[in-house]
């Protein structure tokens, strides 16, 4: 790296001897270059990240175990992207991560991040903690980004003026799936629901989607079994006999839609239904903001960058954190990042043109702070489609056919 030359912070240049074919070591870390540059003023833009740890059940499939660095890994990639741009705009982004253990004090983490000058703070936490944080930050020059919680209430009666949501809510996810099922002419759904509050919340979103787009729920069946031991040597044989019986005798239906967010039984249903029917919902065909095999709209480069850095596949929460950090980066390249009011206004305006590998710019909805974005509908291996689907029309933006639209919004920012 000795022969790398720095030129006034405008980006490095590597002049190679004509015969030296060593193109790969030229990749210089952007941060290094900015630090090495003392001739021009660099604007610091510090970002915070609160990761509230949550006790999660062990997923049924080993493949679905959550990586320890989920979310943070996505934020770090976006930070690199921002800092490469920062080379040219004389800006330096940093990320301070506060991990809060189960039962820990998230408010203390917020205080610390605010004291350290972080005005843009990503939050990976359940809804009730996100609300506490939002209320604690009220009136301060601080903007929170919800990168995880899918609760519709956070965009409705419990919306907060200082929170933007890069995570889609259950209404968007259910609408995206429902549009595809209707497009596929599979309107009759047999619903199998779990017993937990989040299952009921997803079910509510499914009902709303069915009403909006013409789906019919032919029957709802509750899978009452509570989670016990996840693995036992005889488990598979039992399941193979139980699931067909459980789904027997249903009214005529096209697709089984499962509402089981904690993964208690959902992944057991595909290939085991009494009638040969596809499975969708929280298992089988699912709606999500990002899939590790999504390669449309330039996403290949994003997947490559992420995998090189994190040594694993990119997951929805990673993408949602990436979106938040990139949104701040994009705003900082267009308005003065030191002016919080200008940044806040720009982020919420139509001027934000965030390229997000979805084939259209993504922006935040003015009425509830929810990111307006197309949603991927995918099977386990690959994306199947992206909603909004053709033919679902909207007077302003097709993506607003997903989730809570302005006329039905109950959100009132104070």
């Amino acid at each position: 790296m000795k022969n790398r030359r720095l030129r006034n912070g405008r980006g490095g240049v590597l002049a190679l001897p004509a015969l030296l074919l060593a193109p790969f070591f030229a990749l210089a870390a952007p941060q290094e270059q900015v630090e090495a540059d003392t001739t021009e003023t660099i604007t610091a833009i510090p970002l915070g990240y609160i990761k509230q740890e949550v006790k999660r059940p062990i997923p049924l499939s080993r493949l679905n175990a959550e990586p320890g660095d989920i979310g943070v890994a996505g934020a770090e990639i976006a930070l690199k992207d921002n800092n490469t741009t920062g080379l040219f705009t004389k800006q330096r982004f940093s990320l301070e991560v506060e991990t809060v253990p189960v039962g820990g004090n998230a408010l203390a983490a917020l205080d610390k991040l605010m004291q350290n000058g972080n005005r843009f703070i990503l939050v990976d936490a359940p809804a009730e903690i996100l609300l506490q944080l939002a209320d604690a930050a009220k009136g301060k020059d601080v903007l929170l980004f919800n990168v995880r919680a899918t609760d519709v209430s956070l965009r409705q009666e419990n919306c907060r003026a200082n929170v933007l949501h890069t995570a889609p809510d259950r209404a968007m996810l259910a609408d995206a799936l429902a549009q595809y099922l209707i497009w596929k002419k599979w309107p009759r759904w047999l619903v199998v629901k779990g017993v937990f509050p989040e299952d009921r919340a997803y079910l509510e979103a499914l009902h709303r989607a069915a009403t909006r787009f013409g789906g019919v729920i032919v029957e709802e069946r509750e899978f009452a079994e509570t989670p016990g031991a996840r693995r036992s040597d005889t488990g598979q044989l039992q399941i193979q006999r139980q699931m067909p019986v459980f789904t027997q005798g249903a009214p005529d239906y096209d697709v089984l839609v499962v509402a089981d967010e904690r993964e208690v039984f959902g992944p057991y249903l595909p290939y085991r239904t009494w009638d040969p029917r596809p499975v969708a919902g929280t298992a089988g065909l699912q709606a999500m903001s990002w899939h590790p095999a999504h390669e449309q709209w330039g996403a290949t480069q994003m997947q490559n960058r992420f995998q090189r850095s994190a040594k694993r596949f990119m997951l929805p929460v990673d993408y949602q954190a990436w979106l938040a950090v990139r949104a701040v980066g994009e705003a900082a390249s267009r308005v003065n990042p030191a002016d919080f009011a200008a940044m806040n206004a720009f982020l919420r305006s139509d001027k934000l043109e965030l390229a997000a590998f979805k084939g259209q710019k993504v922006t935040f909805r003015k009425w509830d702070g929810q990111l307006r974005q197309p949603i991927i509908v995918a099977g386990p291996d690959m994306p199947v489609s992206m909603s909004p689907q053709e033919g679902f029309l909207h007077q302003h933006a097709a993506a607003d056919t997903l989730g809570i639209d302005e006329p039905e919004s109950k959100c009132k920012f104070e």
Partner: protein
Amino acid sequence: MELKSLGCTILGAAFLLGGPACPALAYTVYVSNEKGNSITVLDSATFEILQTIPVGQRPRGIILTKDGKHLLICASDDDTIQVLDVAKREIVGDLPSGPDPELLNLHPSGSPVYVANEDDNLLTVIDLDSKTVLAEVIVGVEPEGVGVSPDGKTVVVTSETTNMAHFIDTESFELTDNVLVGSRPRFAEFTADGSRVWVTSEVAGVVSVIDAKTRKIIKTIGFAIPGVQPEYIQPVGVRVTKDGAKVFVALGPANRVAVIDGNTLEVETYLLVGHRVWQLALTPDEKLLFTTNGNSNDVSVIDVPNLKVIKSIPVGSAPWGVAVSPE
């Protein structure tokens, strides 16, 4: 030339009933098929497919060398640039492009070749004769479009995530200016007189016209097509006629090519082509414009003087890049 003129006359006669008058000289048109991993070779006079040549994986940007003897092909998934001998119609070598080459352009003298490495935030400069890397210039995230000034002194690279047009001095390889443009800039094209640079922004849905001297944006041009949702208007390829009077912009999933008056900078009309139009190439006589339509697997042919789409030619799977022989 005489033979070609004769061919033109015969063809002109054949076209008398309804077709355009003597359409053009017979050039050879090359189309890269991104998913088909092949190059389709077309005749510009008969619109017949002469040959389909299997090449490396995910061929995208293509360009003919100035002598017209070789076609350089960015084989993105093979991390190389393949060299196709156009007389033999076979691959005869490759260039050390660095990872994931997507678009490329040539110095007016014929060498070096400038390559955008989309995955690596680099512009790689390769000497064509010695096939060696002369320099790697660090640019913004996801570099793609590469424009070269007619005097060969400046290269403009667009970076899709950084949203800039980077002006690079071809002698020192220094970045002299970074112009912030609309979101996801994909293509940069100098006018023939070197006074302006046209840069398309796919996600913003606009084209920026940059003054090549002051490096300031003269105008940002938006598009509005009745019946087409604004989010489907995604400008990618752009070509300017030699006199600077007409500018053609491929609008991606809007399935249109916009025609802009190069003097007033106003949109004149939109021409309906195939689905997801990516790149454009004019014949040297500027009678015809070929467009690659990625989602309908065809090439549309536009009659430039009459601004009419006259033909659709099925090619390989997911056509992306297009180049036309100099004669």
